[in-house]
């Protein structure tokens, strides 16, 4: 297990390094002079020169890359060019919205998908199975941002159960904040739940064909008991990978959903940064999102090895 963990850890570091190089290259090398790009075509040469000095663009690119990564490792993401505040603080302020949203959406995804998938598998070929599969087929075809618009129309505009958007902050207690995140989380979760339910069902059906299920049935367990005691646990392995992938989709998908609900999360931050050409913020947020995806996948790999000892050997 230790060898496996060390191996995965090395590949995690390598991925992070290569990802940071790619992002740095796209954002700071490709546009030529980032300072001139950020200030636009009408900037005076001395303004550009001043910004170049302020951003430290006068040092060689390799040095800048090393400074950038060394800074990030210490939690220093540089200063925003438009707001003149530390980017790390801006990200932290937005993370308290984006992260709970993604976690809530993931929890909803699992809560919806597991029972649906298990139910469909246990009723394979029957009406209940067909119903769940039809619903998931529709679920994967619905764009989450459109679903969000409909939710707003029904629950905020017509029924007035929740407000149509905005975020009251966590300062007024947990419930008002959570209430503002419910609709966005549902909008994010439902299409993902449809995918996960399908994976859960097919993974379970694979398990139900295995010998150990036949043995369990032979020793006198009912179909249902065999399913719950033996098949579900084993079916979780592929399901776990998909959940890991989905977390990154939920984080990135949140960028779109935040626009609809006027939530002050990472998505809003990145769009403000794009429109004001604040490349430093764009670079940092993208690195953060990609870094999170890589770390989550690493965690999934480890969880895998814990569940299935055979995988430890292969690495």
């Amino acid at each position, binding site marked *: 297990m230790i060898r496996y963990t060390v191996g995965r850890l090395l*590949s995690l570091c*390598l*991925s992070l390094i*290569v*990802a940071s190089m*790619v*992002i740095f290259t*796209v*954002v700071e090398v*490709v*546009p030529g002079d980032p300072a001139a*790009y950020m200030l636009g075509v009408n900037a005076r040469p001395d303004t550009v020169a001043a910004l170049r000095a302020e951003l430290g663009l006068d040092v060689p690119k390799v040095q800048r890359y090393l400074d950038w990564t060394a800074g990030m490792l210490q939690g220093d993401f540089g200063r925003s060019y438009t707001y003149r505040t530390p980017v790390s603080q801006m990200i932290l302020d937005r993370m308290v919205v984006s992260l709970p949203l993604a976690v809530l959406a993931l929890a909803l995804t699992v809560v919806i998908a597991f029972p649906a998938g298990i139910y469909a598998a246990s009723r394979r070929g029957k009406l209940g199975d067909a119903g769940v599969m039809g619903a998931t*087929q*529709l679920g*994967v*075809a*619905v*764009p*989450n*941002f*459109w679903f969000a*618009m*409909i939710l*707003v*129309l029904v629950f905020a*505009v017509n029924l007035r159960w929740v407000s149509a958007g905005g975020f009251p902050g966590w300062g007024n207690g947990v419930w008002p904040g959570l209430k503002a995140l419910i609709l966005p989380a549902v909008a994010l979760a439902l299409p993902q739940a449809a*995918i996960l339910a*399908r*994976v859960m069902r*097919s993974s379970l059906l694979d398990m139900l064909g295995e010998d150990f299920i036949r043995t369990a049935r032979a020793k006198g367990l009912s179909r249902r008991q065999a399913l719950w005691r033996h098949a579900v646990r084993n079916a979780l392995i592929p399901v776990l990978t*998909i959940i890991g*992938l989905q977390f*990154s*989709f939920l984080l*990135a*998908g949140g*960028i*779109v959903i935040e*626009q*609809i609900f006027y939530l002050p999360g990472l998505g809003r931050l*990145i*769009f403000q*940064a*794009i429109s004001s*050409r604040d*490349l430093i913020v*764009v670079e940092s947020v*993208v690195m953060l*999102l*990609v870094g999170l*995806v*890589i770390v989550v*996948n690493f965690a999934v790999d480890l969880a895998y090895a814990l569940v299935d000892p055979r995988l430890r050997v292969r690495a």
Partner: protein
Amino acid sequence: MSLPRTLILGALLTALFLGGALLSFVWTPYDIELLDIPNRLHAPDAVNWLGTDHLGRDILSMIMMGARTSIAVALLAVGIGMGIGVPLGLTAAARRGSLLDEVIMRGNDLIFAFPSLVIAILITAVFGAGASNAIIAIGIFNIPVFARVTRGAALSFWSRDFILAARVAGKNKARISVEHILPNIANLLIVQGTIQFSLGILAEAALSYIGLGAQPPTASWGRMLADAQTLASIAPHVALIPGLAIVLMVLGLNLMGDGLRDLLDPRIRVART
């Protein structure tokens, strides 16, 4: 052998949108550049079958023009993904276990860490928004998908006797990949292509919805939804119709993909995520 029902239904839905998109090159009910403010936000009726939007434009005509954008973007993105991903996958399988295989697969993992939305954001931040950037962003996202599917499927053929026979006959690995492996995995690639096509439609809609995709005056379903957002409570049809168009198109492609998979090889199970 009868065709699967899902295939027929899916193909019909897909043909409907494809037909509408093709028809829009020669004819649309109204000119979508024609603004008719006095007739704005009309509900669907005999004159405008799907109603009019906030500028009085005919929504049916906009949907037809938008289908063109969606299909073009998604199709080109699949082309990029296949064009680069399939050769990479074939190479990795042919050189299984080599350094090249390792580099290709690690590279794939790395691209997987960049969701298409994040790629689009990066590209847009530096090069500006536009349909071509949406194509590139979704296309890059498709590369590792095709590379993985290709490698996995190709590996299962490399151990087969007919490949051994080809090697004994003196064919090199590249030639075997193209002449023997590729035709055998083509079915699988077609099915995966259908799935990526439908994901591309969804991704294009999301990108143009947040303003990173097609720019005006190009019609796009995502942009129509963005325009409709503040008007949905006054005139629900402007928000419902473009969304339904996306759902039906994606549903059609997914059903077609499922049907094709059943038709081409009932044993093959393709991961749908």
